[in-house]
Structures are given as structure tokens and as C-alpha cells.
């Protein structure tokens, strides 16, 4: 029924190899450079040669791109000083060279073990992303795993021109466990996986318009969606932000008091919740559209 490896099960390097044209990926600051975190060493935590971020030049569909992937398994893909500096550098290079930048996000946000350095790096990267956007250089975030894009990386992902998600991807700021601790199990039961996914998962994000594409959980589907977006960009404009302001106001007004995610789905045109829950990628999108 399924064929080929699932994107959410691949490692960062496998994802890059699967997205890039064969043999086109040239890694920047590759593992032999041994740029490892001085923070983790001193804390007695294993380090990694890429500090949890693989970056480089590549081609997708013959088009030059800068391509990066976070390693979710390594300290939750979190952003430390080196990891963050690589990220900033890559988007700066993209802006400088006017080459699109694709970032496969898999991160809980700032790496706590490295304190505020990662936080500043995320802020710096946001500046670099907007540099790209000002120059009409496309920036694309891919969010396709349950580690997803959270904390500062969740916010950062919304700064990019486009977000490509799968049903396995999650996008947010505060994770379910944090909210449960804060508001109590009644407000958010983090062990209720269905609720967690309907709160932050790709399908809900796609319905609300926060994800630009919802694709099958496979490298081919992700690559096709990315390739389509490489020719587009969405520079910030007054008209654009005014429209977005209205849209977000409307969303808040419609659903601000809604506890049940199914009500949001219904409100966004999904008629058969059960079928939509089981559907994947474009099939889900079609079901939602048909509902409209």
C-alpha cells in the first residue's frame, strides 16, 4: 500500500539526499570539520559533528537551492550557538546569492543547554529570512515530523514565504506537555494524541491557511511541492499585511472560543471528519475543498 521510505522516518541526511537532484548536494561545514558544541561537551552530553544541522548547496529539479535539514533526534533538533550560526549563515548566503533556501525543520526551538545564544541566533536568522524575502528570494520551510517546528523555530517557520507540511508535521510554539503543565490536564491532555494532532498538525494548519501545501509523507511528494514553490515568492507588502490582518482577525473571531478542533475543521469546510482524519495529503485537501 505504501511505497518507498516515509519522509518522517528518514534522517536529515536521507531527506536531503531524497530532495536534492542526484549527486548535487555539496555540504557546507561538513562533519570532518568537527564543529561540535562546546556547551554539550562541558555538560557531558554527546555531541554531533554537524551540531544537528546539515546545510549545503544543491539542485532541485535543476534549480540551484540552498538546502538545510535539522536532525530531530539530536537534542530535539534544538538550536544552539553553532547550529544557529549555520542557519543564519545559510539564509544570508541565500540572500547574497539570490538563491532560494529550503529548510527542513525538525526542532523544538532553542537548545536550552546553550541558553540565550540559540535564541539570538533564531532572531538573527529571521532577519536573514526577511532579507531573502525583500529580494524576492523564495524561502521554504518543510515541516513533516512530530518533532515539528516548535518554540522559536515554530515562529521562524512562519517568517518564510511558504510552508510545506505533511499530516505528520506539527507547527506551534508551546508544546502540549508545556501547556498541560501550565493549564492543567483538563485544558489540554497531552496524552490525547488525536487532540494534539488536531491542534498543531499539518491538516489543521493547512485548513487554516498556515501551511501552503499538504502533501503525502514521502520524499517525492515533498520534492514536488517544494519544486513548485521555488519559482514563487511573497515579498512583504502593505496590501499583503492588511489582507493578512483581516484574515487573522476573522479567524480569531470565528474560532476564538472554540475548544473542539472538529468544529474548526467543519468551519473550514470539512464535512466528513472521520474520512478526512484518515485521508492523507492531497486527498485530505480534496475532501476539505469538496466540503466547501
Amino acid at each position, binding site marked *: 500500500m505504501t511505497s518507498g521510505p516515509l519522509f518522517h522516518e528518514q*534522517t*536529515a*541526511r536521507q531527506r536531503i*539526499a531524497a530532495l536534492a537532484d542526484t*549527486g548535487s548536494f555539496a555540504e557546507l561545514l*561538513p*562533519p*570532518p570539520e568537527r564543529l561540535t558544541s562546546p556547551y554539550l561537551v562541558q555538560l*557531558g*552530553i*554527546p*555531541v*554531533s*559533528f*554537524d551540531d544537528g544541522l546539515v546545510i549545503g548547496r544543491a539542485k532541485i529539479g535543476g534549480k540551484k537551492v540552498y538546502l538545510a535539514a535539522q*536532525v530531530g*533526534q*539530536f537534542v530535539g533538533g534544538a538550536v544552539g550557538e553553532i547550529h544557529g550560526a549555520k542557519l543564519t549563515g545559510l539564509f544570508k548566503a541565500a540572500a547574497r546569492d539570490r538563491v532560494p533556501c529550503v529548510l527542513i525543520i525538525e526542532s523544538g526551538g532553542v537548545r536550552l543547554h546553550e541558553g540565550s545564544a540559540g535564541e539570538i541566533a533564531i532572531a538573527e536568522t529571521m532577519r536573514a529570512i526577511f532579507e531573502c524575502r525583500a529580494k524576492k528570494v523564495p524561502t521554504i520551510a518543510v515541516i513533516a515530523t512530530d518533532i515539528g517546528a516548535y518554540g522559536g523555530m515554530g515562529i521562524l517557520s512562519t517568517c518564510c514565504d511558504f510552508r510545506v507540511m505533511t499530516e505528520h508535521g506539527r507547527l506551534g510554539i508551546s508544546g502540549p506537555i508545556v501547556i498541560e503543565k501550565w493549564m492543567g490536564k483538563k485544558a489540554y491532555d497531552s496524552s490525547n494524541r488525536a487532540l494534539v494532532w488536531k491542534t498543531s498538525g499539518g491538516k489543521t494548519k493547512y485548513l487554516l491557511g498556515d501551511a501552503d501545501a499538504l502533501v503525502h509523507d514521502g520524499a517525492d511528494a515533498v520534492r514536488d511541492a517544494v519544486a513548485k514553490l521555488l519559482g514563487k515568492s511573497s515579498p512583504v507588502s502593505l496590501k499583503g499585511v492588511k489582507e493578512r490582518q483581516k484574515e487573522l482577525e476573522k479567524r480569531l473571531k470565528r474560532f476564538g472560543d472554540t475548544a473542539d478542533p472538529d468544529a474548526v475543521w467543519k468551519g473550514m469546510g470539512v464535512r466528513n471528519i472521520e474520512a478526512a482524519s484518515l485521508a492523507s495529503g492531497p486527498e485530505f485537501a480534496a475532501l476539505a475543498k469538496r466540503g466547501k
Partner: protein
Amino acid sequence: MEKFAKAFPSKPLPSKTAKPWALAGVVGSGNLEVLLERGGRPSGTMECHVETSIPGYKASWLAALADFAHHYPAGGTKVTINDQGAPPVLVNLRLRQAYDHLTKGDK
């Protein structure tokens, strides 16, 4: 953390490899990364450096690495491992994957 290094006798690596280095695996709970590099080392040994988060298993490590050096011509390479508690079977698997990448390239 426990750290150790040892060189194991191994037949020389093929003179031509697809890449100068290869990395397999990721550092994560129960997993490890293996960096395999070619060049600048005696051609009759495989030089290994291990950093592991679970101390006390040096004997298993050395046996697994020795077996690999014995079964694969990996002389002249440097193996560096960052480990976060991977079982030996994964050590073997990652070594093999890194070796395949090094010698044959990525698929």
C-alpha cells in the same frame, strides 16, 4: 561519558573510493553516528575513536570494531564515533552503512 581510541589491523581500503568521508547514523537516544574518513593514515590499520554516553562497555566496543576491521578492508581509515547508548548491532550497521557510502557513494 567514556572516551577511548584504538587501531585495529585491517586490509587496505580500495585505492579508489567514491568520497573522502562518509557519515552514517545520528546522535540520539539509543543511536550513534559514525564518521569514516580516508587518507593520511597507515594503510594497514583502521584507527578508531569512540565517545560514548554509557560507560563500561569497552570490551563490547573493541570486539565489534575488531570484527569490522577484520571483515572489511578498511585499512587507512579513521573511524570516529559519537554514541548515545546504541546497541552493538547498530554499531555494526552504521559502520557498514558508512563504509558503503564511502566506497560506493550515496546509492
